[in-house]
């Protein structure tokens, strides 16, 4: 049976723990190792934090999280409907942060890239940003 996760919640920091734990729970039928689950939780937390901190400025907005598994690979998409990113290449480079003095490490995308097997970041035509990431759960870590 093809299972699929779809969830949409307000982009507030209280939802970070909720969303990373929901995605982790969705992965359980794939028999993940503890390290695989930790990697996924951390990567999802980074993507969601980006939405919470950067996507909407002072406006309110939502975060959409989708996930499905195919051939042992978990695919996760995190989408917001905010302002998007003008220079994605710059944004994903290590230690870049647009947050100025707000004490941001600037390694969110680096964490996602390192902890997952693949990462795509793109602005949606209708506005907002999507992060696609995937991880092969059949691979030994």
């Amino acid at each position, binding site marked *: 049976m093809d299972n699929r996760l779809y969830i949409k919640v307000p982009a507030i920091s209280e939802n970070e723990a909720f969303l990373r734990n929901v995605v982790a729970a969705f992965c359980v039928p794939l028999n993940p190792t503890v390290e695989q689950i930790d990697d996924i939780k951390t990567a999802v937390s980074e993507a969601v*934090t980006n939405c919470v901190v950067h996507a909407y400025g002072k406006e309110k907005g939502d975060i959409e999280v989708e996930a499905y598994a195919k051939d042992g690979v978990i695919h996760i998409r995190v989408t917001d409907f905010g302002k998007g990113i003008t220079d994605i290449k710059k944004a994903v480079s290590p230690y870049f942060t647009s947050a100025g003095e707000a004490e941001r*490490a600037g390694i969110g995308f680096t964490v996602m890239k390192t902890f997952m097997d693949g990462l795509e970041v793109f602005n949606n035509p209708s506005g907002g940003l999507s992060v696609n990431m995937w991880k092969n759960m059949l691979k030994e870590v």
Partner: protein
Amino acid sequence: MVEAENKRDAVYFKFVGELDESCALKVKDYMDDVIEDTKIKKFVMDLKKLTFMDSTGIGILIGRYKKITKKNGVVFITDPQPVVDKVLTLSGIYQIMPKIEE
């Protein structure tokens, strides 16, 4: 969250639970008050009971590191769980806050 405890010659920041954006401000404020008020120069981030942290936590630690070194203090990290250790290692933070055994 986090709680400070004076032990031997150091201030220990003992982290408990999960550290992310949702508690970042509270954690920063609490730690800054402690750093401001103490004469002790050695700080240890005790991560034994920290069950999750993302790069928001790295930002918080680096921010506190800057405040502590401004007062000529030193910072160490001890006892991170594997999930937290992986993010810390990736960030390169151990180069400025060495990992010590307790």
